[in-house]
């Protein structure tokens, strides 16, 4: 049942992404990307990842608001001009390569519902699930993993966010330093 629902939502997401690519109206493209994100959030919820679902939903809403508010104005909502031939051909070749790669990778995937990291007996995932509550004291196993076992990862993510804000501030600040002098 869950797999069927996830399949339906995946189909919906593919259709939404295609509409976002093909439409000439920027506002419709942004809104269909938002629909794709909402469907992805429901998919996460269906396969049992409420943490990721909450984060995905919230970030999707925020990015939709930022995209609409910051990039779309009354003028400049349509895309003009044709695509050039070389770019189209390069894109098609790229997509063909990705399809072949994706299909051959798909054949080697473990079956749905039994992730590769839990197959062997000493797998880290098994250790986290069995001893997570005792070793960290956190009832939410996701928080235990990202803030205790894998603290380095979260520190790296925080650094990435900090650096990107720094770069955005440096590029988009109102007055450049030269003008001030």
């Amino acid at each position: 049942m869950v797999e069927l629902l996830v399949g339906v939502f995946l189909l919906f997401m593919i259709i939404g992404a295609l509409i976002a690519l093909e439409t000439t109206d920027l506002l419709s493209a942004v809104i269909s990307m938002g629909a794709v994100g909402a469907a992805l959030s429901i998919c996460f919820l269906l396969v049992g990842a409420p943490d990721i679902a909450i984060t995905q939903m919230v970030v999707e809403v925020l990015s939709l608001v930022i995209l609409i508010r910051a990039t779309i104005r009354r003028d400049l909502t349509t895309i003009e001009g044709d695509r050039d031939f070389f770019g189209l051909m390069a894109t098609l070749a790229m997509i063909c390569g990705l399809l072949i790669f994706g299909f051959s990778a798909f054949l080697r995937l473990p079956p749905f519902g039994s992730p590769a990291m839990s197959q062997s007996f000493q797998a880290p995932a098994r250790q986290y699930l069995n001893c997570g509550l005792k070793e960290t004291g956190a009832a939410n196993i996701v928080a235990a993993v990202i803030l205790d076992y894998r603290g380095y990862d979260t520190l790296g993510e925080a650094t990435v966010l900090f650096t990107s804000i720094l770069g955005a501030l440096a590029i988009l600040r109102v007055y450049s330093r030269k003008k001030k002098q």
Partner: protein
Amino acid sequence: MSLVVQTVTRWLKGFIFLYGVYVILYGHLSPGGGFAGGVIVASTFILLTLSFGRERALGKLGKLMASELDSFGALLFLLIAVLGTAIGGTFFLNFIEKNWPTGNFHLFSAGIIPLCNIAIGIKVAASLFMIFIILAVIRVQEVRGKRKLITTEKRRKER
């Protein structure tokens, strides 16, 4: 924005803010955590910006204050990690007793994990609000028949 949006914002902003704080504080017990809660807190200020304008939102959380909070959150997170080295000899060691002062499944438990969640929440909220402010400053406008990227401060001056 219209009167309806402004009235609804005036009623709801406190509840949305409180919900974000709840998601941050209970990140180690229920789904959520520092990142999701921080985004919800930031969305409160973005809602204020959208309905009442930039000045009202910046009056609540100024640009300087936001950048200071951003750096403070990142430094607090790093400080917790380094304290693990100082106390127990391992980076990111959970140096507080896990069941202190109350047992598992309570708000005050799980050692450093709630503290890390709070640090990340502060950092994410401040930085996402800053992203929105600096992106909303820039506008596309026609200046003498040409499309140009200009800032709102500049536009106000030209008027």
